[in-house]
């Protein structure tokens, strides 16, 4: 190892990771929203199947070359494509979009891309309105699973099966799972993220720990030791309930196991499950033991994150997209480590069961005049956005990494190693469910965090309000 520079070491690691990711990805089970017997999804896309394929191919023939995408060549097609996304100036993904689009411009000068970025929350309204009114741009950003599923069910999304054939080797089938409905592919994934347990190692050292504890008992002991030293174990933005779910979902998953959780999230099983109630009680006992910053309830996630980086909390559980921001802070970066949440009930759950998965997705409108070209363009663009996003530390690549990726920060690489060992993924609850159910769910999560309801009340309420 002496002969190797740090950089070369990193390259080696990454090559290994890439190979592993590919190999592992093929075998691991990932929850696919629309596939299988998922109640809501399959019903909806089932209804649309026949119409969907006919519809899309006829749309395509109106555009370029009669449905057979092999005849479509991006090199000599002259056209303008319109794209909407959420990579606004302040979004951490902005740079990867800009870099990818610049590259596309030089490589395909014949295709002009008009793109526009909207603020996240208002975009959700905007794209839904546009879909309802058949006013979609050719290419649009979407979240996978339930969000895209609604559009697919109403036959508004172009099926990408033909275009995907060319990219099979670069984009593992399993990564397409969250945008696959009834066996058909409708989305190009960009980066993927999981929930990570970030730790400030300086504070852990003060409590006598050199590593993030690997078992749940040790972990709880560590929290108590931190409290002894007047260090707040967890930072969590209570005013943004999705931040609470980052903790709660990990606790539930490590108590009841990934398969049971996927069944519930995707509507294959009801919430009426006493094991969930027990897991929620476990989480609530952490709240009641004072492991969470009480002031977090009125703070936004950005403020909590800033507090974590300023050394106010020992742990911060949140999406791995934070790696980029942590890496950019030279003071803080050496202190931070990332790990997986420990297993609570080893009969049901095991290490390698993670929360997260590919959600950021690009899709093509069925109404696009150049749908076949847009489909190919979207794959090419998605590959590049993924590439640059990965280099920036915005998340892990859904595509097989290419080129020199040695500049990826060490934290993101650690996340990559966690993903290498992944056995199953459960997508974030609020992405997996449709908007109404997701908000009902978030509301009950907030009630749990505020100790308004206990585990039993949580499952009772959800069983009653979600049908």
């Amino acid at each position, binding site marked *: 190892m002496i002969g190797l520079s740090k950089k070369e070491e990193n390259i080696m690691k990454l090559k290994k990771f890439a190979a592993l990711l590919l190999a592992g990805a093929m075998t691991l089970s990932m929850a696919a929203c629309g596939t299988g017997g998922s109640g809501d999804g399959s019903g909806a896309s089932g209804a649309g199947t026949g119409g969907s394929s006919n519809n899309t191919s006829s749309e395509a023939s109106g555009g370029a070359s009669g449905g057979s995408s092999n005849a479509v060549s991006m090199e000599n097609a002259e056209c303008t494509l319109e794209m909407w996304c959420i990579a606004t100036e302040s979004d951490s993904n902005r740079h990867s979009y800009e870099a990818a689009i610049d590259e596309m411009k030089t490589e395909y000068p014949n295709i002009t891309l008009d793109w526009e970025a909207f603020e996240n*929350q208002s975009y*959700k*309204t905007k794209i*839904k*309105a546009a*879909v*309802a*009114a058949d006013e979609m741009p050719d290419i649009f950003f979407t979240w996978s699973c339930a969000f895209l599923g*609604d559009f697919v069910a109403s036959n508004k999304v172009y099926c990408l099966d033909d275009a995907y054939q060319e990219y099979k080797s670069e984009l593992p089938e399993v990564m397409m799972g969250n945008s696959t409905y009834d066996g058909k592919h409708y989305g190009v994934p960009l980066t993927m993220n999981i929930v990570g347990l970030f730790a400030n190692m300086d504070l852990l050292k003060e409590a006598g720990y050199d590593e993030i504890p690997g078992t749940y008992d040790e972990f709880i002991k560590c929290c108590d030791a931190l409290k002894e030293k007047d260090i707040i174990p967890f930072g969590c933005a*209570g*005013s943004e309930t999705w931040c609470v779910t980052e903790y709660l979902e990990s606790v539930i998953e490590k108590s009841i196991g990934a398969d049971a959780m996927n069944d519930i999230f995707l509507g294959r099983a009801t919430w009426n499950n006493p094991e969930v109630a027990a897991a929620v009680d476990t989480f609530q006992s952490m709240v009641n033991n004072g492991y969470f910053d*009480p*002031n*977090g*309830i*009125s*703070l936004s996630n950005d403020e909590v994150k800033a*507090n974590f980086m300023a050394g106010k909390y020992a742990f911060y559980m949140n999406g791995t997209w934070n790696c980029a921001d942590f890496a950019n802070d030279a003071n803080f970066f050496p202190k931070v480590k990332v790990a997986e949440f420990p297993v609570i009930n080893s009969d049901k759950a095991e290490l390698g069961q993670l929360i997260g998965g590919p959600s950021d997705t690009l899709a093509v409108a069925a109404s696009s005049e150049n749908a076949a070209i847009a489909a190919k363009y979207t794959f090419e663009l998605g590959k590049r956005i993924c590439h640059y996003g990965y280099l920036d530390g915005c998340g892990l690549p859904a595509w097989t990494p290419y080129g020199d990726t040695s500049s990826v920060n060490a934290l993101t690489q650690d996340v990559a190693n966690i993903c290498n060992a992944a056995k199953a993924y459960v997508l974030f609850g609020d992405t997996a469910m449709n*908007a*109404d159910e997701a*908000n*009902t769910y978030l*509301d*009950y999560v*907030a*009630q749990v965090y*505020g100790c*308004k309801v206990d585990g039993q009340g949580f499952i009772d*309420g959800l069983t*009653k*309000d979600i049908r």
Partner: protein
Amino acid sequence: MKNKTYKYVTVFLFLLPALILFIGVLIAPIVMSLVYSLFDLRSVSTEGMEFIGLGNYKELFTSGSISFWKALGNSMLLAVLSVFIQLPLALGLALMLGKGIKGERAFLSIYFLPVLISTVVIGQLWRKIYNPDYGILNAVVGSGLMPQGGWLGNESSALWCVFIPTLWQYVGYHMLLMYAGVRSVSPELREAAKLDGATDGQVDWYIVIPSIKPILRVSVIFAITGSLKSFDLIYVLTNGGPYHATEVPSTLMISMLFERNRYGMGSTIAVLMIALCFAFAIIINAVFKERDIYGKK
């Protein structure tokens, strides 16, 4: 000379712009809201929406995660606080200023100043004032007094913390209305009362306040309907949290629409809000009328 038809056509033409705006933007949407509230409408596309009768109303009042009762109670509470804290404070200031004090104009101008500031600015500013770590309120009263969870994060303090900026902004508004009333009370009447040996307090109580009753009525209507409509400040400060402690119907409506895509349910809340506003307007008018009758006896 000019026949009736001509007159009515002219009247109609004069009314036309106002009628188009009024019916197009107010009346028609209210009728549409009423219709939508009976449907399970989940996207902007209204084709194929499902008729569910009073289903939305039923769900609204029974759901464990929507908490409409809480929102209703909060807006009532805000209305009560406005009438019984904000208006007396405004009246007090108006009466004090009405005594003809040096610097009257300067005070008047300062009090009215917050009215002109955008509510979003005020919300953002007070967010900073309440900040649990670096806010000015902690620096002023000492952080020891801060409730657990922070000023805006504690369920029992949050509603008060939302009310105080409203108070801060609108006291000037009501004060100016009342001040105008106080000023229009005839000086002769006041002087006469004073010569008869009435104290300042008695003059205010027996002469000034009764004579500005019409303005008080306007203030009460504005304060109450204003509380029922309140949105901006709460949206900016807490967005209804923590745990719906500051939820009001309008914030609930917006989250129904744009977080849950429940357009039918959003319309249901809108319909109930309109009903509530009208109910209050009628009650206020009745209360003031009744007083008039007693006054005349």
